[in-house]
């Protein structure tokens, strides 16, 4: 009786059985990578906005303070997207004929909002509050990156829960003096010792407290 399988099948089956472990591991690895990729998290993706607003120009070159537009960042959960009026404060005087700014002028004329694409988009079950982070010494750049160097705004970080927890578990690695919150280029000379000091000074809660589920979810 002839053999059903050719001898080479021995090798194939060995490789398959042995390789299955790697295949499964590889799939897991791929899933983990995929889950964190910008395809899923939408980080480092710049969206087409109604007006190609450049933070690099307004913040980096002109030096406008964050709070000129994002007025409620120190008092409210929502930092605030500036009303059209804020744009028009300047653009009534400069670049009045620019076609790029036509949506802004149109909004001002008609009273209809400018429909900005949301860049930093958290799931509905997460309740993030800007004001408390700012009050406790978390700088804008800590989460949003070098906004002052972004021609079109994109999301610097993954905004995954593991990313949030990384700081909630070790806040000392990310704290800065309150005076430097809105400073984009600030860097600590010795983050470890400064972080520990600010932890005390700003009465930042313990990781146990900061990682309670209801701190963010409710």
């Amino acid at each position, binding site marked *: 009786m002839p053999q059903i399988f050719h001898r080479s099948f021995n090798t194939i089956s060995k490789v398959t059985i042995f390789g299955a472990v790697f295949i499964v591991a590889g799939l897991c690895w791929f899933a983990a990578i*995929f*889950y964190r990729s910008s*395809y*899923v998290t*939408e980080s480092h993706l710049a969206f087409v906005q109604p007006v190609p607003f450049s933070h690099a120009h307004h913040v980096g070159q002109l030096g406008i303070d964050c709070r000129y537009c994002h*007025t*409620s960042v120190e*008092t*409210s*959960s*929502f930092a*605030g*997207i*500036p*009303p*059209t*009026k804020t744009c028009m404060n300047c653009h009534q005087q400069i670049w009045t004929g620019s076609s790029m700014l036509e949506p802004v002028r149109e*909004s*001002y004329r008609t*009273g*209809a*909002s*400018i*429909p*900005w*694409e*949301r860049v930093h*988009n*958290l*799931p*509905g*079950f997460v*309740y993030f*509050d800007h*004001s*408390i982070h700012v*009050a*406790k010494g978390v700088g804008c750049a800590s989460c949003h990156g070098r906004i002052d160097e972004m021609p079109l705004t994109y999301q610097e970080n993954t905004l995954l829960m593991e990313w949030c927890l990384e700081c909630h*578990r070790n806040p000392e690695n990310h704290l800065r003096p309150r005076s430097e919150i809105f400073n984009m280029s600030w860097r600590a000379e010795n983050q470890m010792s400064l972080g520990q000091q600010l932890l005390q000074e700003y*009465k930042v*809660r*313990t*990781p*146990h*407290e900061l990682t*309670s*589920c*209801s*701190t963010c*979810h*409710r």
Partner: protein
Amino acid sequence: MAVDSEGRRFWRSLEEYLATPEFQEMLHREFHEQASEWTNPVTRRRFLTLMGASLALMGLNGCSTQPAPREKIMPYVRQPEEIVPGKKLYFATAMPLGGVVTGVLVESHEGRPTKIEGNPLHPASPPGLQHDAEVGSSDSFMQASILGLYDPDRSQGVTYRGQPRAWNEMLSALRGALDKLKNQGGEGLYFLTETVSSPTLAAQLKELLGEDLFPKAKWVQYEPANRSNVLEGAKLAFGDYVNTYYDFTKADVVLSLDADFLMAGPGTLRYTRDFSSRRRVRTRRAGDDNPPVNEIQMNRLYAVECGMSNTGGVADHRLALRPTQIEMFALALAAELEVPTNTRDAEAELPEEARRWLKPLAKDLTEHAEKSLILAGDHHPPSLHALVHALNHKLKNAGQTVKYTSPIEAKPVDHGQQISELVKDMAERRVKLLVVLGGNPVYTAPVDLHFAEQLRKVPLRVHLGLYQDETAALCDWHVPAAHYLESWSDGRAYDGTASIIQPLIAPLYSGRTVHELLAAFTESPERSGLEIVKEHWREWWKQQKRSGSFEEFWRQSLQEGLVAGTAFENRNLTPKADWAERVAKAEPAQNATKGMEIIFHPDPTLFDGRFANNGWLQELPKPVTKITWDNAAIVSPNTAKKLGIAYADNIRDASGRPGSSGGEHGEAIVDVIELTYRGRSIKAPIWIQPGHAEDAVTVHLGHGRSRGGQVAGGVGFNAYFLRTNAYPWFDQGAEARRVPGETHVLACTQMHHNMEERAPIRSSSLAHFRDHPYFADELTAGEAEKPEVLAQIPGPQPRGRAEAKLEEERKKDPDKNRLIPLTLYKDADKEFEEATKQLGEPGKKPSKGYQWAMAIDLTTCTGCSACVVACQSENNIPIVGKEEVTRGREMHWLRIDRYYGGEPFDPNQVSAHFQPVPCMHCEKAPCELVCPVGATVHSHDGLNDMIYNRCVGTRYCSNNCPYKVRRFNFLQFADFATSSLKLMNNPQVTVRSRGVMEKCTYCVQRIRAADIEAEREGRRIEDRHLMTACQAVCPAGAIIFGDLNNKESVVYQWKEEPTNYALLAGLNTMPRTTYLAALRNPNPELTSPQRKQGE
């Protein structure tokens, strides 16, 4: 079965009292029998289709890679100065109901009202407990009115005979008709309103009926739940219409003659607050003025009533009399108090128990002259009200506990007389143009007037209303009314204080206010509501000659929610000498026919029917019967027996076996009776109510709407069908007959979430409490474990429960040095230490932070259920509908368990205790241990967190919860589809989907918001900065929430009280929510003989 200090047993239903086998079985289930069954019919073909589709789509399911859908941000073009995106604002306004307004504060998120609170500055909505609270108390109607605003069934445009029309078309049609009428001085023009206390509306009507416009036009008022009897009674006594209100802070002894003042009526929140302030038993603490235990005083409430009301339930003494007997009782009491009346021997007509009451009651009242108070229900005849005025005068209460002012109504009238005159004019075709300004008279008018039939004889009929209701269907023109949250208007509170009603949002459905519609009858038809109201107050302000500018006055009045200094002055009145003779003349001959007495009552949750389309109020269990989505003919157990309906026979479970009522699944299958009264008869399901007076039947108005909306449709029977103009409130001569073989399913929650016989409710008389302050310490655990268990309840140990006493009991403990600890759960402290060790901070005790806890005072809780609706509103809790309630799937996070005390077959012996049950936030929470996915875990500040996005719906947690406070979304209950309802949601709380468990969070969103604010400002959270939704609304101040780590917090102080006890403490769950045992203050001279035997 639990008993109180007087030896009275507590029970929730007759089945529990009688311990039927079905009841026992039901106790041992997690959910009700049908709760997890899929009962909707699914055919085989449909099943295969669904399964095939789900298999095919299973893979796709994992493809929703992006956790959040893409969104757009739409900023303001010009941002209003006061709006900070993400921050809520509060605006003061006032809610009118029955012609009387109550102050409200409305929470607004970027222009969208989402939650109602009481206005703390307004006299009618004071904070229940803390004077410095940021919000005041409110009732369930106020809470639910936000749903009324967003109701998608509201009428959405002007119609002419059902066809959509423009407002201008209506105006021109009206103009044409008015031009004709004007020549005749407006003869034939009729305005029909509800009770009017609005100064602006009154002025507008006065102007319209003035010489210049329509001097011969008529203004008619009709309100189904009117207060004419109260005013007519005052007129009998004083010769003039007088408004009466009460000061319960000064009343030591209160006699309520069928007045449910803790639940309904103008000023009810103020009354509840004041009444409760005299019942809050607080013992001495170092450095405060509270009396020591043996000197504690409480007020005392005697309730004489027919049906079991909340007021009667929590009264110290309760006497069940039929309404006609109540007047006799008052007359007999008058004789006892030596007040001359022209009725002799009233006493002879009273039952024995009532006669026994007279002497001790009269003595108690006389001894507390100037500090006693007698009040009568709004529905009792004027003669009784006149008599009560005389009694209060005799007891020198007038000016002390009873205050008289000018009437708050703009024009006090007899509503019954007004509506019958209107119908007569309609029948004689004298009415040419009828303008119905609010109200729904086709549905609510007395049946013997045949309002609908006569209405057809009016050539032109205009209706202004929130819904396309029964009246709108019979009117030519219908104009959608603006909700009060969309309106400029005004009105007066129970004491005359005027409030300006300001809109929170532009009308959603192009509604018009009554002021705007009335302007159409004048020369300037396009005046806005704001202009009209503001103009009126400008005139008033000019007359007042106040200092400052008008704009300043206007802004202040809007901001405070009331016009300062408008409360009416108290009048010093004495009954006219001949009041008794006039009573005799005014009293109509009592209907002599015998039979049962029938009582018509506004529904406790739907009022006169205007809230019938409000799902929150439909699903809110009626405070006493716990019936939802229905009304019933309510009778006593003995009366039911007489009708051939024994309870065990009456009530069957789904399989038809006799057994539990409202038990098993909340599905009470009850018999149907036919009620015949004055030649009309209706069929009604019967409900056996312990404590109801014998030979009487109570029916609630407001159900059985034919054009009420999607929610109201098909719910209950219409009791207006029996209500006549001569006897709108109660009468003799009704007959009831059991309809053999006919049954009706009632959805009743009284037996849902039962906690077995573990003494959930504890009560004592004040006298017993003085001698045994720690009576509530009883435990269902073993005696040996008692000290340890008690010591583990979070919070301070009750003051004075001497350590020595504990030690003593510890000595009695035979296995004190047991090797195995009390529970199998890990020691909380050790666990914490381990957890923090892992995080690199070993042993850091959580003492520096906040430790949240709640205490609920069962002495002051009146069971009004405002907290249940407040919780629903705050936490986006969906409604499920009648069918789902019968399966035990209602979603209320906070339920109120009602326990009866005493013997069900003697109506005078039945009392009621109300116990709100939220999540206990156990420190050793049984639910947390069994969750396989960690969706319910503890937070650092002692909250039992529920994380919806982790929950996979195993329901193990609710199976393991001894308090049965967890609720599961068996179906997609939250409404994601209706756009108007989306606007209503609290943006700070996740809207839950199907398959997710949820439960009380202690309003964690409020805690976190207060925490963030306090942290930003570098201070600690004090009591006044943070209130849970249930606490904020409570007019009785029965719920307190706060930080156990702050010894100054009220919750800490309450937990030091000797009456503090934990629910099911024997299970050693260490609950954060505890209760203060109920205290009652019975008169030792009136303690009933039966009860003495029971001791």
